């Protein structure tokens, strides 16, 4: 198929960006979206124009490195990561707009690449269990009810891609943060620091410039891992308890 691409080009963090139009032809439906961009980049390189910068690594939907706004949808029209989106989701003649995640807390580095360091700093604020290597009891010392283990797992599936932020009209990172809080709150190992954790992560979240949550739900819709919105309820509940204490 033949496609028209309108791609955000921005030379650096302090440069102005603009959408530039490119054409690609003979795109096979079996190609992934990023392979289609690889083809474009080979074409640009041959023509002497600098290739489009975009992030990806695993290309299997698990590392969270990729992430593009594709015609207004975070990760494109399917519920998956950008790297797992295939060209069979598009049709011959389509015009596709490709932009980076947009959020104050995710500044653009170049073209489609953004800085998501704010997510690391939220985790640094408390998204862990304080246990040094070698200090662990036997793994069977504390059984964990399967229901809790399963919910912890669902929350822990977050890949830190940032689509939830990009999709949110408030650019809030509550789904990402709620996923981590829920993962650890469901497990006995997470209990001792439960209250301190949520307060400190939320403070960091606000300091990074992420917006507040107004229950729009776009985050969960866009999330390639299907992180459910109720992780935000768990976060809010923990936060209320912590602030009351």
């Amino acid at each position: 198929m033949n496609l028209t691409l309108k791609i955000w080009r921005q030379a650096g963090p302090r440069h102005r960006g603009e959408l530039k139009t490119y054409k690609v032809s003979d795109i096979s439906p079996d190609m992934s979206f990023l392979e289609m961009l690889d083809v474009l980049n080979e074409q640009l390189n041959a023509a002497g124009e600098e290739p489009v910068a975009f992030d990806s690594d695993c290309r299997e939907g698990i590392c969270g490195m990729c992430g593009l706004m594709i015609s207004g949808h975070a990760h494109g029209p399917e519920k998956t990561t950008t790297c797992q989106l295939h060209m069979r989701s598009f049709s011959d003649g389509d015009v596709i707009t490709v932009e980076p995640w947009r959020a104050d807390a995710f500044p653009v580095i170049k073209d489609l690449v953004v800085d998501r360091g704010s997510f690391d700093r939220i985790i640094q604020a408390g998204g862990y269990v304080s246990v040094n290597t070698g200090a662990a009891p036997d793994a069977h010392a504390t059984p964990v009810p399967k229901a809790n283990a399963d919910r912890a797992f669902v929350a822990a599936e977050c890949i830190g891609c940032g689509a939830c932020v990009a999709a949110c009209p408030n650019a809030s990172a509550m789904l990402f943060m709620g996923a981590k809080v829920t993962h650890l709150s469901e497990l006995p190992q997470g209990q001792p620091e439960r209250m301190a954790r949520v307060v400190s992560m939320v403070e960091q979240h606000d300091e990074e410039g992420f917006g507040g949550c107004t229950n729009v739900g776009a985050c969960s819709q866009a999330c390639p891992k299907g992180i459910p919105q109720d992780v935000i309820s768990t976060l809010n509940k923990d936060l209320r308890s912590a602030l009351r204490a």
Partner: protein
Amino acid sequence: MTTTNDTVNAGIAHGLYTEGEGLADTKAPEGPIAGKWTQRQFDAALVNPANRRKLDVIIVGTGLAGGSAAATLGEAGYNVKVFCFQDTPRRAHSIAAQGGINAAKNYKEDGDSVHRLFYDTVKGGDYRSRETNVYRLAEVSANIIDQCVAQGVPFAREYGGLLDNRSFGGVQVSRTFYARGQTGQQLLIGAYQALERQVAAGTVQQFTRHEMLELVVSDGRARGIVARDLVTGDIETHTADAVVLASGGYGNVFFLSTNAMGSNVTASWRAHRKGAYMANPCYTQIHPTCIPVSGEHQSKLTLMSESLRNDGRIWVPKDRDDCDKDPRQIPEEDRDYYLERIYPSFGNLVPRDIASRQAKNVCDEGRGVGPLVGDFRRGVYLDFTDAISRMGRAAVEAKYGNLFDMYERITGENPYEMPMRIYPAVHYVMGGLWVDYDLQSTIPGLFVTGEANFSDHGANRLGASALMQGLADGYFVLPNTIRDYLAKGPFEPLQPDDPAVADAQRSVEERTERLLAINGERSVDSFHRELGNIMWEYCGMERSEEGLLKAIDLIRGLREEFWRNVRVLGAADTLNQSLEKAGRVADFLELGELMCIDALHRRESCGGHFRAESQTEDGEALRHDDEFLYVAAWEFGGDEGEPGEVGQPVLHKEDLVYEAIELKQRSYK
């Protein structure tokens, strides 16, 4: 059967390498194998807690091996700097591991033990790994699970709340712990969180989007690295008292592999060029159940869990004229279930290396299925029709549903209705930098952990044991051995004008400028693809003297062209992904040649290394313990003028000694 001597000499006669003195591990203590690790931990010098913050350690890599080491050394109070090329430590390639992690917990009371895990790993490695290291791996494996559970890793559990296990990769006990199909992700997030805790505590500084491009060696010791800040393009030198490489495997030398796009050899190769020996570089694991190449634009391959072989049946048409037919129209009598035919007792469950090679053989005969890629169809059917009629569709869905969905997303075909197509793909490398029992390379002060070293898997790795090794190295082994070295420090600080620093920094700058200045006709990817094709054709599932000699010639030609004709656009002082790739491909072009030389010199078949000249009468792998019971550790041959011109490598042999285990030939007939 041809004897091996003439070819060992042939390699030398072709002027491809020379042989130097043997080498040996001197760190494993004397005494019975079960007591060695306790003894070594006791013998290794201690560093007083007050001195630790005066000692700087650089760790390159934040996968399971690097992330766990950085967190643990930070907790111990050392001053740690950790580097990765992704935008956050949590995205290291370890994240993609699916199946699970082994540990000798014996929670199932099914006869597992440290000794059995040790035995299975040595045998699985086709008796080409170092006994002492493997024993220790099995010994510390149980601690890993305890540590991860304490961190909040959500392993699969049973209804009683205790941990579940499964059996994996053809072993007879259930010792694999797992978190659905995302075990690597969950383990890595555990290590990442421990690491971020240390970043918050100020013991670890993390440098993301930074790529190590050179090792600083001063007075014969590893003293730092030169790294490029991938965002600003700044070339920075970081000095330290010791350097740890946890930079992963180099399977991407084949261009197409199941590795992440960025996985590369540069950190290891730069260290190799500075004196670290590279061990068994040709040992590559090719995984049989991957989704086949769909076209010329393919950028990577996706693994499908090996568990599919438990219920799926593998076949190709008997007649090559049937290869483009709808498989559902091909009657039973016209199908060749070749694994069941050749290996009646193991059938579809033969080990990874055998399943892979037979798939290649039937496709080479022209009986492959799926689209034509080049002149061949490269795929075989993995058919669940029998399983669905035996177990019912619901049961198949419960067991394999997520894999079937993934297959459908990638290929657009529904595997409940149409047999899956699979083909082998490069997955893992057993080869890597040579290390002793302390995980120290041949450069004092340079330690290597995880997939980047060679130590534990011999010529073939068992499923679920790479995750085990990465975390064993990082949480438990390295922190206890590196102190023996660090106790000699802190070393004299290196000044920026020290020749060792200035030279390393300058060489990186010159290389960068050079790559940007060539401005030739071909893209970096086109060179990488061509190298990958050469490696896959001649140094892949089956290797022969003739093919390897040809490959070496082709690689040399390609390398020469690369430095003359590559086109890297953009500038040095900004994010420049073509420049990053160019540096990696330049190193792959040197590594590829060494892999071929190693494969050429090892005129025996062992594990993932199958030499056409060394097989039994019925086509099975034949080892030659009399001549090849050693680790081949290669010393860099030196630069010869122009970039990409390298001298003859020097082979150093480490003899393998088996005291706790008896040597046997594998047989699956």
